[in-house]
């Protein structure tokens, strides 16, 4: 399957976890990656800059109406929901919190599933609430691939556990295998 985009949802413990995954990706990686990391509403774009400096792909905070490009990594701005539009651009919203979160993982995952369908990969990582479970379910129902971090390897297991409980996910992977797994998806993509 030629996957086009990967969406990642992560909460507490996210910075280190994301770093450990994204550093595996080669500079010619051609899928788009869109990330919701729960953050304090007054945070700046530190997370994007931190990851950008440590990873061979460009990592940036998402701008509204930005076109989703292959091989780029987008991070939701603090205090805004991040949505995927029909024409594969990103949009923002300051609508109410969803699952006590803004940005909410469900909002990103559900809108991404509508647009990318079976060409989408959804990944739930460490976190202390249940955001993302509904969204991951929708990705599965739309024919996409679903991956959850093995709760035993997560800094906080609540979020991966909730995702596993609500969806029959395709893969439950320990943290150290997630980066290489994404790379293998890309290797398949290149072969096809």
């Amino acid at each position, binding site marked *: 399957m030629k996957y086009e985009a990967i969406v990642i949802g992560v909460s507490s413990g996210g910075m280190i976890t994301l770093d450990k995954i994204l550093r595996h990706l080669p500079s010619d990686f051609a899928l788009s990656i869109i990330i919701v990391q729960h953050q304090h509403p007054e945070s700046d774009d530190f997370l994007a800059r931190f990851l950008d400096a440590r990873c061979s792909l460009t990592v940036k905070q998402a*701008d*509204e*109406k930005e076109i989703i490009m292959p091989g780029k990594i987008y991070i939701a*701005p603090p205090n*805004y929901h991040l*949505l*995927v*539009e*029909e024409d594969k651009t990103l*949009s*923002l*919203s*300051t*609508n*109410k919190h969803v699952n006590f979160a803004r940005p909410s993982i469900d*909002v990103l995952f*559900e*809108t991404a599933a*509508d647009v990318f*369908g079976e060409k989408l990969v959804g990944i739930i990582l460490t976190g202390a609430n249940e955001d993302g479970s509904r969204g991951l379910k929708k990705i599965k129902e*739309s024919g996409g691939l679903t991956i959850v971090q093995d709760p035993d390897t997560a800094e906080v297991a609540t979020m991966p556990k909730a995702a596993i409980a609500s969806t029959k996910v395709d893969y439950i992977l320990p943290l150290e295998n997630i980066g290489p797994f994404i790379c293998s998806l890309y290797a398949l993509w290149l072969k096809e």
Partner: protein
Amino acid sequence: MKIENENIEIKLLLEAMYLKYGYDFKNYSKASIKRRILYRLSRSGLKTISEMQHKILYDKQFFEILIQDFSINVTEMFRDPSFYKSIREKVIPVLKKLPFIKIWHAGCATGEEVYSMAILLKEESLYDKTTIYATDFNEGVIKKAKDGIYPAERLKEYTCNYQKAGGKSSFADYYSAKYDYALINKSLEKNIVFAEHNLVTDWVFGEMNMIMCRNVLIYFNRDLQTRVIHLFRNSLCKDGFLCLGSKESIRFSECSDDFVDFVKKEKIYRKK
């Protein structure tokens, strides 16, 4: 297949709302509108968006409910305190030189940010020579804005925002709290004109020294954003200020050259 049909149904629903009631959401960002339609659908007992379209046409009350869903009224007093601090420190000294000041707050929702500006102007001794036009397309929220009654549970947060924004007095001077509510002092409402105005379909109504429109444009597609930025340019006098939300910009539009960055980080522009 389901998604394809849903998208067609949404287009038809928006067209029906426009033809029947004159509210035009066709150029709103689709993903957000779709979420709000599906939210209402799941609570309505209706099976499909097509059924909802039928109900909209024949049941005005249901239309009113959907309009409330479509209008994002998430706001707070002194939202983004650093923005208000910049207004106080950078914009106010310029406004002080004017004989009178006209401010347009477009998309004012329930009014919290309008009163924030009124407080700021009062503390800078500019309130008496200012008129604030506070507009929204949603009649219901305009009424709430006018009432100026807010849940007391949020006062702590607002007080904190007020202080971070450089407030010069005590925030408690500006409201009276009773039971679970806080009533904004009526003296702050004196120079505010609340009115209905729809950025999608209405046009210029005056020449302004400052326009505030924060976190409204993010809900519009590029075509509609372009229209609204034109509207703002035409509504501002020379050297007037345009204030957008922190993630919004005018730099994609052909009006871009008509503005200079005044406080770049806070998205405060100044018309040339």
